[in-house]
């Protein structure tokens, strides 16, 4: 069924100089030049509102606006709901979307406020005094151990050292471009943090960034071999992803081309299917087996991360993972991004990261096993304030991906699954990939992280805290606004004014 396009292209003809930049820049082929009438025309039905043409139009002649031609208003059947039904009635297909859940579900970060010192316990000025933002991820010893001669046993389980409590989370080469990976790898190296290969293997050019790389092992085991496992600083077992808990991944054959197929080690053009489960994991005991097989294969030199989606019983799941031998648990909330996920799953499955994180931290403390693992949380960490709140709720560090994409130029048009990202990120088309210059991409990522680091220090200083370690799990620094008693109970925080 044909419906009126969601967006309209507004071209101010008195400003348009017919330079045809928009035509060249739009991979969706919205714009073209009509030589007879000497005008630029457009087919807005193909527009995804990625703002590429708007940004590059030299005379600012273009605007993309939301169409006001709507179906008859209905609070129950929204335009979106109706159009989804039309699409499915036409094709019989499962709806596929990308990026994180855009629906107006609660964002608890925005209902949590941070403390500051007044009069007593004075604030600290980060420009004047040293502030520690470094964190170590991995198992921490429960007790001090001594050697036979009385000296301290300083042998620790393998750790990741982060200059600040933020890492770039998994995005596979295939779902994003070579230049996007290059930007992330270089930025992580310069910043002293880590980026994550995702489940698509590691391109041979990026082995040089191994010290700042986390390599992922997912159910499809693409590109997984001994050298790959040893190339990184940690291995992440992907059990789940916040945007699509309970289902696997699927890189369409059209994207498994050239170096992507080589890096995944699958033939060109064949679908890369990551089944929903790991077919050897049906229990925590089985998970333990995968954790230890990876540790054996890499001689216990690398910490193993187990990444799970935030789902209903997350606290019990995390408790199991903490006993599986894993060094780090990564929890991904339901607003986390994706290169492609079935719409229904993205929008309806999983729980908010804030609640999941608080529940997991509490459970592990209650059981006395919090030191068995570090906790990394992700799934829409949008700012330094979110990071500080997450740490105060119990995280050791945060994973960011959507924010990192935004830094590289993403405009959140949520069309990654088309493979025609006009910003050179979620695409393998060479003409589009080269729009993202890794020199600039990495610099912008470094800027973003440096800015966040300053903000984290300022927020910590305001609380009179000079080290991330002293903030972790420090829920007294948080207050809720407009939350129910139950929500406050789960978050483990008091209401503002209490």
């Amino acid at each position, binding site marked *: 069924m044909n419906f009126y396009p969601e967006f309209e292209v507004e071209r101010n003809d008195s400003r348009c100089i017919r330079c045809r930049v928009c035509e060249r820049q739009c991979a969706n082929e919205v714009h073209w030049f009509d030589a007879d009438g000497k005008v630029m025309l457009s087919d807005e039905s193909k527009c995804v509102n990625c703002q590429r043409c708007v940004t590059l139009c030299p005379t600012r002649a273009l605007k993309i606006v939301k169409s006001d031609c709507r179906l008859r208003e209905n609070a129950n059947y929204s335009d979106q709901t109706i159009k*989804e039904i039309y*699409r*499915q009635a*036409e*094709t019989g*297909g*499962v*709806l*596929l*979307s990308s990026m994180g859940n855009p629906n107006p579900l609660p964002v608890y970060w925005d209902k949590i406020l941070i403390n500051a010192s007044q009069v007593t316990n004075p604030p600290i000025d980060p420009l004047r005094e040293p502030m520690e933002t470094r964190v170590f991820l991995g198992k921490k010893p429960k007790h001090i151990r001594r050697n036979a001669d009385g000296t301290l046993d300083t042998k620790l389980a393998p750790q990741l050292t982060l200059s600040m409590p933020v890492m770039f989370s998994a995005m596979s080469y295939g779902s994003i471009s070579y230049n996007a990976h290059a930007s992330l790898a270089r930025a992580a190296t310069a910043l002293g943090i880590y980026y994550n290969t995702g489940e698509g293997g590691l391109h041979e050019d990026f082995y040089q960034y191994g010290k700042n790389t986390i390599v992922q092992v997912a*159910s*499809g*085991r*693409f590109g*997984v*071999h*001994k050298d790959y*496992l040893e190339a990184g600083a940690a291995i992440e077992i992907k059990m789940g992803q916040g945007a699509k808990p309970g289902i696997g991944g*699927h890189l*369409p*054959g059209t994207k498994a081309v050239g170096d992507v197929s080589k890096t995944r*080690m*699958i*033939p060109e*053009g*064949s*679908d890369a*299917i990551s*089944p929903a489960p790991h*077919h*050897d994991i049906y229990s925590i005991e089985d998970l333990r*087996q995968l954790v*230890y*097989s*990876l540790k*054996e*294969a*890499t*001689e*216990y030199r690398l910490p193993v991360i187990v990444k799970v989606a935030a789902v209903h019983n997350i606290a019990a799941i995390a408790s199991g993972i903490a006993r599986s031998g894993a060094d780090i648990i990564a929890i991904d909330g339901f607003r986390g991004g994706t290169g492609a996920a*079935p*719409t229904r799953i993205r929008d309806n499955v999983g729980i908010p990261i804030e609640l999941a994180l608080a529940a997991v931290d509490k459970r592990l403390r209650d059981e006395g096993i919090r030191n068995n693992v570090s906790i990394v949380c992700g799934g829409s960490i949008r700012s330094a304030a979110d990071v500080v709140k997450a740490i105060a709720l119990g995280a050791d560090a945060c994973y960011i991906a959507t924010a990192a994409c935004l830094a590289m130029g993403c405009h959140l048009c949520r*069309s990654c*699954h*088309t493979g025609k990202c006009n910003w050179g990120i979620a695409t393998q088309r060479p003409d589009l990939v080269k729009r993202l210059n890794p020199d600039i991409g990495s610099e912008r990522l470094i800027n973003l992280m440096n800015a966040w680091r300053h903000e984290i220090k300022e927020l910590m200083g305001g609380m009179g805290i000079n080290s991330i370690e002293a903030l972790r799990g420090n829920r007294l620094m948080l207050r809720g606004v407009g939350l129910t008693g139950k929500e406050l109970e789960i978050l483990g925080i008091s209401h503002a004014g209490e």
Partner: protein
Amino acid sequence: MKLDVSKMGFSEVNEQMRQTPDSEITLTGCIGQRFLAAGTGGKYVKISGIAGNALGAYLNGSVIETFGNAQDAVGDTMNEGEIIVHGNIGDAAGYAMRGGKIFVQGNAGYRAGIHMKAYQEKVPVMVIGGRTGSFLGEYQAGGIIIVLGQHTDGKPIVSNFPCTGMHGGKLFLRSDCEGIHFPHQVHHRAASPEELAEIRQYVREYCAHFGGDPDEILNAQFTLVTPDSGNPYKQMYVAN
């Protein structure tokens, strides 16, 4: 190196194997230690007793020969090398293996060859002498699985739901496969003599390990199963 492992845990056994400069290693008294020789290359490991789960996981070129049964996840994600089992094996053998060969004298459990894949010159091969459990070749994306059906318990050569989600590679079953139900996205038919020629070499190797006459084994009906598309999910989605 000769090692009696009957009183050792898996990490100690593996550590000793890593430390020794010897390329030939004999383990005796194996009592189910897991992950034996995981990730190793360039060794020949001979095992007597029963090897535990994940024998030769991520194997990178070593040859493992075990005289006894092996458990689950034999050759998990192996890349290169060979695993020879003089006995039966458990579930999920060769999960996601990309290269090398697994030879099993007897039967295999569930999900043998699950998500096996191939890439360029890397074509993994699994030869099972007897029968296999359900879900053989599930999600198979590449490589060759050969089941010789020399079991004597009268059960079918493969249990339920073989080849679910298969989208690459080949499966040879030494049987007419009558009564075996295959999913609609795969083709199954009698293998031609030319097609059988492709596996002659592997059957020969099997016989070299365990005895038997390759010609005799090959002189039987084989069913060849292949997927009809490398893109089984293409039509399933609509952009939203």
